[in-house]
């Protein structure tokens, strides 16, 4: 391999690190240059809420040690965001004005929280949770003696992680969500209802089918936030968390140079429409096994596997060959697991039943299992999604076993 070969990784998170691991494991000895918009090492977004809630220390949020990263021998350009990727010129430019060329480039920029829907210009910047900086700000806010009541806007997984962190900080917490129940895009009503009962038992206030209409900052000591809800209620809080989902920003990619749908469209080896440009993680729209369509599955393991896939493909191509068919990205199913102070929710695959699909709900004393089945042409049915909601979070227990079994069944049915 030529010494001038450079693999650029835009975004130094899970997908990026895994791409570097795969490159080195495949014997690639050239330059790997990673671009990071922060000075902190790659961190685990999964753990940020645990840090806020005091279950993890700051250092524990960084999955890779300095020694491990050093062994990967990656040159990290940090602290300045990439503002241009020009595939035609194989050029990357940072906001600091530095320019770099590459032989192959992987885009794994992740995603950022959006605050769309929150009243802009109210004089209060809501808390969000994604980066370590976000977590540090939230932790400081939650640990302030002035913070007694917090409102979480949104009902997603991230919203619930924030609820858990707030509870662990001893804060009285309420949720508001525009849909009819918690976990709006991940849960069937029956499972959501059990989960909501668990939250209510922990003192979490819930207001669904509503949004925040107005936020008024009441100056004073301490400062308060007067929130008017779309249903007309008015309440005061000390902090507001907005968890309205995440978006990737592809504005740095030269216009029209890469096919972008909801994210960057990739093939089975994470190759984009632009020559020598790959994408992985939240930035990539790759095979979802349940729908057989290309979708963004914004979960850690998917990002890791996609990064590894891209790294292997690049190493093979730079060695003058083609990636092996066995190294192709096999697709994934959406999976989610969340536990909020002992109340557990696990889901995988489809989360809503479409027309013609059947939902089967089984309730036991402490668990609700809701399954979605799709009819097959031979008259049989295949499992395409499930929810497990349990009143107890017992690692190794029945709820986790059930979730794992059903996940496997979905995956196996998809691969058939």
């Amino acid at each position: 391999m030529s010494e001038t070969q450079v693999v650029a990784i835009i975004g130094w998170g899970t997908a990026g690190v895994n791409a570097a691991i795969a490159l080195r494991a495949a014997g690639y000895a050239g330059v790997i240059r990673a671009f990071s918009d922060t000075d902190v090492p790659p961190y685990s977004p999964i753990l940020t809420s645990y840090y806020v809630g005091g279950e993890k220390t700051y250092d524990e949020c960084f999955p890779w040690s300095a020694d491990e990263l050093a062994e990967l021998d990656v040159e990290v350009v940090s602290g300045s965001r990439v503002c241009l990727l020009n595939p035609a010129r194989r050029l990357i430019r940072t906001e600091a004005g530095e320019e770099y060329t590459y032989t192959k480039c992987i885009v794994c920029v992740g995603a950022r929280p959006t605050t769309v829907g929150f009243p802009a210009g109210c004089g209060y910047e809501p808390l969000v949770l994604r980066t370590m900086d976000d977590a540090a700000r939230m932790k400081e806010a939650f640990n302030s003696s002035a913070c007694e009541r917090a409102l979480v806007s949104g009902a997603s997984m991230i919203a619930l992680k924030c609820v858990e962190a707030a509870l662990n900080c001893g804060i009285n917490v309420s949720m508001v969500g525009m849909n009819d129940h918690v976990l709006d895009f991940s849960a069937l009503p029956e499972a959501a209802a059990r989960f909501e009962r668990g939250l209510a038992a922990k003192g979490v206030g819930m207001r669904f089918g509503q949004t925040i209409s107005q936020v008024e900052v009441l100056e004073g000591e301490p400062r308060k936030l007067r929130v008017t809800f779309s249903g007309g209620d008015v309440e005061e809080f000390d902090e507001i968390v907005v968890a309205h989902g995440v978006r990737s920003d592809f504005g740095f990619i030269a216009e029209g140079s890469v096919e972008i749908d909801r994210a960057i469209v990739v093939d089975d080896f994470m190759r984009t429409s632009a020559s020598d440009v790959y994408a992985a993680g939240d930035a990539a729209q790759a095979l979802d096994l349940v729908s057989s369509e290309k979708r963004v599955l914004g979960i850690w393991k998917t990002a890791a596997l996609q990064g590894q896939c891209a790294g292997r493909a690049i190493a093979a191509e730079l060695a003058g060959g083609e990636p092996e068919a066995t190294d192709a990205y096999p697709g994934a199913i959406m999976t989610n697991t969340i536990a909020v102070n002992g109340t557990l929710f696990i889901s995988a695959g489809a989360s809503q039943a479409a027309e013609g699909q059947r939902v089967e709900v089984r309730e036991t004393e402490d668990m609700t299992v809701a399954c979605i089945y799709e009819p097959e042409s031979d008259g049989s049915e295949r499992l395409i999604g499930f929810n497990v909601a349990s009143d107890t979070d017992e690692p190794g227990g029945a709820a986790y076993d059930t979730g794992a079994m059903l996940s496997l069944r979905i995956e196996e049915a998809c691969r058939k």
Partner: protein
Amino acid sequence: MKALLDRADAYWRFAGTCTQCGHCTEACESLTRAGMSLGQIAKAMLEAQRTAATKEELAMNIAMNGDLVQAVRGCFFCTSCKNTCFAHNDVCDLIYNARVDFQNLGLIERAAWSSVLVDEEWDIFTAYRAIHGIGYVDLVRHKAYEGHEAETGLETAFFPGCSLAAYGPELTREIFQTMDEMTSGNLTMVDSCCGSSLKSAGFFDRAEALCDRNADELVAAGAKELVCVCPGCANDMKKALEKRGVHVEVRLLADWLHERGFQPKHPLPDGPLCLSKSCQDRDGTYLEQTREALGLDEGTFSIFNGCCGAGGAVSAFDPGRQAQQADSKLSFAPDGATVISMCPTCTYTYAYRLMESPRNVTNKHYCELLFDSQFDWDKTFAQLGGMWSGEYGPWLAQVFA
């Protein structure tokens, strides 16, 4: 990247998919004892490699890390940690690789595996069978033995597995006879092993090679379906056949019988029924098939998950742990209950524990509830124990030294 470890890539790959949340640790006593998560096992292997210049230093680094040794050798492969992992990261892949490196570095003592080299002429099962005159050459119809020529075109092959063939000869023969009638004599038996004990000892390649040999045997026999008693055998043979592109359908005996309208030969026992789900039954399909074959209605039985204590050859590392795990499982069975296991090795393990520490629980393999013949554990354990002190003792001691 260093590559002193044979499976270094696997640890990097695994570490890359682990969030380090630590949830898996809480699901497993061995991990809790080690104070490690799955990702930390992978990282500790890499760390041991990073600070070593030679394989000897590497072996020393690993051996000195008691927590790592505990986590790798104390794993039952029950997958409780995997099920609890939010990413469902594959613990078996990780630990099997670590066991391979442990074996290659001389970190698994010979006494832990000398009697379970099931791809060699003598292992504990073949020795037991030889000493006690248990053989099935008349049932292995696709091979030529004294008394019969090799037959071809036998579409169904029965795979009883090591434990059933060794410790339940009457039951094995009764099952074969029933299947023979159902297939109108179009049946043979593969008298072999899936090699799971080899994998536990870190001989992964040898286990795969053994399954490959079984697959070749099936192809040569012209079999179109393989009927296994144990979920573990079924899984391993399915993988081997798929890998070789051989189209032989692998079925669990319970399912095969149920599909053919087989009715259990005697009523189900009275009292509570507890199905001990096999660790190898990852998605619960085999349990469902067993339930149907037994005619158990939903809600009329309880299920307990997790390992019986025999998995992963943990007893060779921590002798008391198998008993502790078996007790933990049996404690879920109420007084007077019948525990029904799917894998004959689980039945064996529970039987051994109940012999050591009796309780008011009946222990049955699902085949014992379907057929008339039963395991005779008192006799089996007496014969197993007697082997070492009787006339064959010196020979066994020499073979398994």
